[in-house]
């Protein structure tokens, strides 16, 4: 929670601290509302409060342990997506890149290749596809939406061709059981959860404390100004797509370990969930805004939403209706908190 309480240092327009003469309740409310993640945290608390009444099993350790296991994949994709969104781009290919990387992993393990090498090649596939996205967008000048949409078609098509419609199976060697979280590392701690936490911490550090992070926010807020102040805009944008591809591949490797099979349709539709999680977490599609912790919370919100449907015994056919409505409420809350902080006066949060 320390990430939540520090001001966005990497953001180009750091809001000046308000004069702390007398701190009344309005000041406190303003402080809370102005946090970039206020909307999503409010929504989570709301859902949890409702669920605690509806389903007694919701607030149990076992259920939250399951939630943590389920949210890993969307969380990893959402972290990558947030970085791309911060630079002002969008990556529609993450779901299909996830699938193709998972396919590479499963295939190579089945070929009996050394496990570490398989891992490296699978993650490398994701990084490579991300690099292609970045190059096509910056060097050929193709709109990001179109370029990554094309990559979605190409990568998912390749996986379909390669598998011939038959899922890859039989790759679950003991090491993979550990990596996929089938066997825990120690106690209840599993590798996917550990990986998610580690990656989130590294990404948050990178976006706040390194020059890459500062440049990314700069490129997203005002590309021309960033270029004039000497930032290599193309390189920052390419790096964002490479990171997004790499994280998609990591999610793919972990997802293959969890499902113990790589179906040709693995990862389909994940890009939408990743974008939704990032936006629920406060990332703006216009660029220059977004937080890693927000992305993780956004992923948690989506996972809790589908959990709600299971626990409240709603027919699963209603699932996407409920997810859509929750998405709308989340953005509405974000809007409301911005309005509220403006009404309460003081400088607005960084755009």
């Amino acid at each position, binding site marked *: 929670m320390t990430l939540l309480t520090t001001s966005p240092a990497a953001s180009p327009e750091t809001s000046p601290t308000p004069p702390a003469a007398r701190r009344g309740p309005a000041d406190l409310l303003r402080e809370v509302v102005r946090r970039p993640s206020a909307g999503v945290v409010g929504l989570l608390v709301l859902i949890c409060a409702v669920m605690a009444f509806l389903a007694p099993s919701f607030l149990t350790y076992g259920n939250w342990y399951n939630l943590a296991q389920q949210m890993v994949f969307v969380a990893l994709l959402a972290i990558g997506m947030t970085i791309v969104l911060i630079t002002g781009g969008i990556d529609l290919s993450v779901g299909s890149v996830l699938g193709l990387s998972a396919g590479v992993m499963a295939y190579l393990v089945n070929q009996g290749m050394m496990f570490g090498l398989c891992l490296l090649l699978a993650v490398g596939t994701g990084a490579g596809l991300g690099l292609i996205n970045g190059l096509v967008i910056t060097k050929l000048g*193709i709109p990001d939406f179109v370029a990554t949409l094309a990559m*979605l*078609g190409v990568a998912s*098509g390749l996986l379909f061709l390669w598998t011939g419609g038959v899922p890859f199976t039989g790759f679950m060697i003991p090491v993979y059981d550990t990596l996929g979280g089938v066997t825990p590392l120690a106690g209840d701690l599993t590798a996917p959860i550990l990986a998610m936490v580690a990656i989130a911490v590294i990404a948050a550090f990178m976006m706040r404390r390194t020059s890459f992070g500062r440049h990314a926010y700069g490129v997203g807020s005002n590309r021309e100004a960033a270029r004039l102040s000497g930032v290599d805009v193309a390189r920052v944008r390419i790096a964002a797509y490479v990171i997004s591809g790499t994280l998609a591949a990591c999610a793919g490797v972990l997802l293959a370990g969890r499902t113990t099979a790589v179906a040709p349709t693995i990862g389909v539709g994940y890009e939408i969930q990743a974008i939704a999680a990032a936006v629920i977490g406060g990332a703006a599609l216009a660029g220059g805004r977004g937080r890693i912790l927000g992305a993780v919370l956004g992923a948690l919100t989506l996972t809790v939403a589908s959990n709600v449907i299971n626990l409240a015994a709603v027919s699963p056919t209603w699932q996407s209706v409920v997810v859509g409505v929750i998405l709308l409420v989340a953005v509405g809350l974000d809007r409301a908190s911005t309005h509220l902080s403006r009404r309460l006066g003081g400088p607005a949060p960084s755009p």
Partner: protein
Amino acid sequence: MSVSPLSRRLSRVFAVEGVAVAVIFVGMIVFFSLASPFFLTGGNISNLLIESVIIALLAAGMTFVLVVGGIDLSVGSVTGLSAATTMWALMSGAPLPVGLLIGIGTGVLAGVVNGAVIALLGVNDFIVTLAMLSVGAGLLQVVTSNVQLTGVESEAFLWLAGGDVLGVPAPVLIAVVVVAVLEFVLIATPFGRSAYAAGIGPRAAELAGVPVRRVRFGVYVLSGACAGGAGVLLASKLNSVQSGLASGYELTAIAAAVLGGISLAGGRGSVWRAVLGALFLGTLSQGLQMLGVDPLWFTIVTGLSIVAAVALDRVVGRIALSRLLGADPSTPAGPSDGPADPGGPTADAALENDDPRLDQPLAGSAREARTS
């Protein structure tokens, strides 16, 4: 630097977005007709047009949204849901006009919700329409899991997608009329002009008295209505509606619009360009089918050709423009002396930024302007 009049004229033509794509389109038709003797037969062409009608309708509606600088991701699932409500109404014994009204009304209703939340509450368009995608697909699933939607026996309903008038397929005729009306609305009515103004600069348009919110609301309703119409045609064509129908059509429609040279940053585009893009994609998949290419390759080839076409269009346009500017900097590609360009404001936008195609960051800043 002197440039011959011919190359100057050529440069001027190719400086217009989408022209290079049109040339590739013609090349593709020539290639496919050489490769397969059946490609240029009447039956195949009418098949191809029928296949393209649904995407063309969606892309035409999407054009309005893109011109205003928005995006509508919900059109695919709304198409599916409209198909379902039409089928449901007709199977419950409603007369045909009522069934059609219910189908199109479903689309309009979705558009009204989209438009109200986006324009009146000011929530981000991408997220709102994404949520509507989710809701629409979910409702389709709920409807289809409760009722079996198949086998309407109304001749008149099936005629919509299967009949013909003097040899011209009915759906093509319907699409031509709709597209012509939409093109007229976009380029010749105050609503259309306001749409361009709102897309180029919302704040400036607002100050100039353009009802930006109303226009923004209107384009989503229009896009929803197009999706409703597409849903009715799709239901008539398949005479059966399953869960997941038309999912992913939104991306194809956007791809078609972009292929036609419509900018996602807003302020530019016209309906015929989007239809050209839809025909491009339809021809590609029909041609590949005729050549006996494994359908598994379709998504790959489509993805690659979209990138190739857009990249080529950009490169050719950039070269043409720089030659024009090099030849005579005082006359950039403008509306008065340029080639006939129905998207008049497109050229106006070009004048305003004097060189939009060389100016990559423009897209980013325009997106910022509309969302902030």
